[in-house]
């Protein structure tokens, strides 16, 4: 298929892998002391597993799968707030499909829908706006979530709703930002990461500048990457090359999409509608300063948090979950005590098992490692016994 197969060429992949192998030898990394490279974004994690990239890389490179899956990191308390909103009789709750299965403390949106809540799956916030136009007697709440990638479309939807004077449309805003989260990972005492593959779609919006601190202050190479398998391999090669040459820069591999200054129109819409929250709670990572986004007071009429009461409780992650340690790269998914037993894609307990972009779900679904197989067969045995 045109414009797709070019980015999945196995011959080019072999060439890149040979280059990476020789650089790794030059650096002196080994299986026991591997280079640790974090791909921040869940979309990258998904590609890595879908194409089996991990097995193609030399063992002296260890990929750490970052927290860049907005569905995964949504805390339970926020999901409970969603459910409270969705269960109001006057409300049509519009959401992206992958948020339907995220567990709250009691149930998820899919269960709420089965119990009678009017939950609609949409592909864009503009679909939710259309629902508002078509159902003037109902309250339409759009479940806005995602990193900077999805913020411009949400912001433009609010501006559009304001222009049309819609009274029955609001957002439950759960947008989060990338930079404070990368900073929190870099500041973590157990942090062992040597370089980053930076999120391509976020960068398409924010540009290169926001990632400069990673190179300048923390002295780590960081490469903005596309989402095709060759994009990711090339980005890993660029990170390793920087390490070999003892350089720390923001490099842009995804030149065909990412402009240096990002998307000025999108940024302008975001600046008009959104502002930073002081703190936002992340599943698996705890509260991170200035990592959450809320709607500015001048658009409060479109803010579900302003217009409806919600439980607004802070619910702790299940105590057995080790998502935080996986996110920081200190353990692998299958080393978590409940991976594959209490926590599976069917009944996720931890953040990273929730969406197909989460590292644990990716290992569980696509992983062909003996450790993953063992964890799965343990689960089957325990199911048989019970």
């Amino acid at each position, binding site marked *: *298929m045109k414009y*797709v197969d070019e980015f*999945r060429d*196995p011959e080019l*992949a*072999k060439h890149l892998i040979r280059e990476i192998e020789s650089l790794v030898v030059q650096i002196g990394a080994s299986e026991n002391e591997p280079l640790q490279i974090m791909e921040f974004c869940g979309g990258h994690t998904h590609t890595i*597993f*879908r*194409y*089996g*990239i*991990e*097995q*193609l890389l030399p063992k002296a490179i260890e990929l750490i799968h970052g927290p860049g899956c907005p569905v995964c990191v949504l805390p339970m308390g926020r999901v409970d707030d969603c459910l409270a909103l969705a269960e109001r009789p006057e409300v049509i709750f519009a959401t992206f499909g992958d948020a339907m*299965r995220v567990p709250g403390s009691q149930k998820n949106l*899919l269960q709420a829908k089965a119990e009678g809540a009017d939950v609609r799956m949409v*592909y864009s916030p503009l*679909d939710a706006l259309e629902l508002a136009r078509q159902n003037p007697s109902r309250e339409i709440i759009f479940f806005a979530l995602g990193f900077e990638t999805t913020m411009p479309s949400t912001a433009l939807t609010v501006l559009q709703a304001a222009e049309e004077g819609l009274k029955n449309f609001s957002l439950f805003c759960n947008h989060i930002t990338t930079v404070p989260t990368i900073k929190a990972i870099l500041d973590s005492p157990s942090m062992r990461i040597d370089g980053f593959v930076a999120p391509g779609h976020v960068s398409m919006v924010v540009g290169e500048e926001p990632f400069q601190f990673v190179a300048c202050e923390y002295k780590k190479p960081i490469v903005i990457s596309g989402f095709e*398998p060759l994009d990711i391999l090339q980005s890993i090669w660029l990170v390793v090359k920087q390490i070999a040459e003892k350089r720390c820069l923001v490099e842009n591999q995804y030149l065909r999409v990412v402009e240096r200054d990002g998307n000025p129109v999108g940024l302008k819409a975001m600046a008009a509608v959104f502002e930073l929250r002081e703190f936002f709670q992340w599943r698996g990572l705890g509260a991170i300063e200035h990592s959450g986004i809320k709607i500015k007071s001048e658009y409060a009429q479109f803010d579900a948090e302003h217009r409806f009461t919600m439980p607004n409780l802070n619910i702790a992650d299940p105590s057995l979950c080790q998502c935080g340690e996986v996110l920081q790269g200190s353990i692998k998914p299958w080393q978590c005590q409940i991976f594959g037993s209490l926590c599976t*894609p*069917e009944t996720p307990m931890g953040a990273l098992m929730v969406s197909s972009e989460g590292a644990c779900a990716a290992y*569980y*679904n*696509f*992983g*062909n490692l003996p450790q*993953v*197989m063992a964890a799965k067969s343990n689960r089957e045995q325990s199911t048989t016994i019970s």
Partner: protein
Amino acid sequence: MNSQSDTKTITMAHGSGGKAMHDLISDIFLASFDNELLSPLEDQAQIDLTQLIAIGNRLAFTTDSYVVDPLFFNGGDIGTLAINGTVNDLAVSGAKPLYLTCAMIIEEGFLVADLRRIVKSMKSAAEAAGVQIVTGDTKVVERGAADKIFINTAGVGVIPAHLKIGANQAKPGDKVIINGLVGDHGAAIIGARKDLAIETDIESDCQPLNDLIAALLTVCPDVHCLRDATRGGIATVLNEFAQASNVCIKIDETAIPVRSEVRGICEILGLDPLYLANEGKLLAIVPAERAEAALATMLAHPTGSQSAIIGEVVESPEEVVVLRTSFGGERVIDMLVGDQLPRIC
């Protein structure tokens, strides 16, 4: 032409058991499905056993309900699905499909013209597959109690004595064959759903497989596993084979035939063609020494003209399906959690 069933919509009276219902049955159902087992209109069809015994030694008996949304799509409708789906469920046992039932649950207000169109499709599909609809039932429920129309068909067929096909029969060394392009039905349904706003000419692959299977069994009577890959796609069926037979199935991404439009839709929506529904795709696991002959026979048949060998059975890791990706890596293909899309058949 009967006046009662010419009214534009189905009403509760059509399900009441009274005159309106009788008119509907004779005008729409009897007129289309007419055969000597149905026409006496007893409460049951009476089937001569001697005729069945002549074909084989086991009765294959299956049932399936059809709730697809939308009812009409490129390449078929709920009626063609209701016949072909049940015919295929019988045929993958090696059975010769013979008789089907047809039960409909219709929502009050349903258009008679649409009912006629569906029944006409069922008649054509049944003729194409060589089966008869020999008994049926019609219920009408109040508006909102069902979504437009739901159809259940049960079917019987007879399995020849020498066949031993089962999901637990796959052996290391066996080859995996598919009879053509994967994911067309799922993609056609996506195209027919207006809320996704994707325009496509892709047609559902809805088709009966019994004739292709009969041809396959003449050259390869020792087929180990056969199943039609419907909901959950070929990924799900391969997992069922791997688990039931306690083997590993390795497939090659580059060998799996997928239409480029289907790949395109999957790229846009983040779906995987391996999990997309099919309604006329057969996965066969055959002994290696018969694979080429089986493939040649399938390729020569109109329902198998794009058949391909897509993988093989190996010993371990047991109960796992592994995909060699086009990129050169490997990954596990697991069963799907939840639906990629609801109500596809």
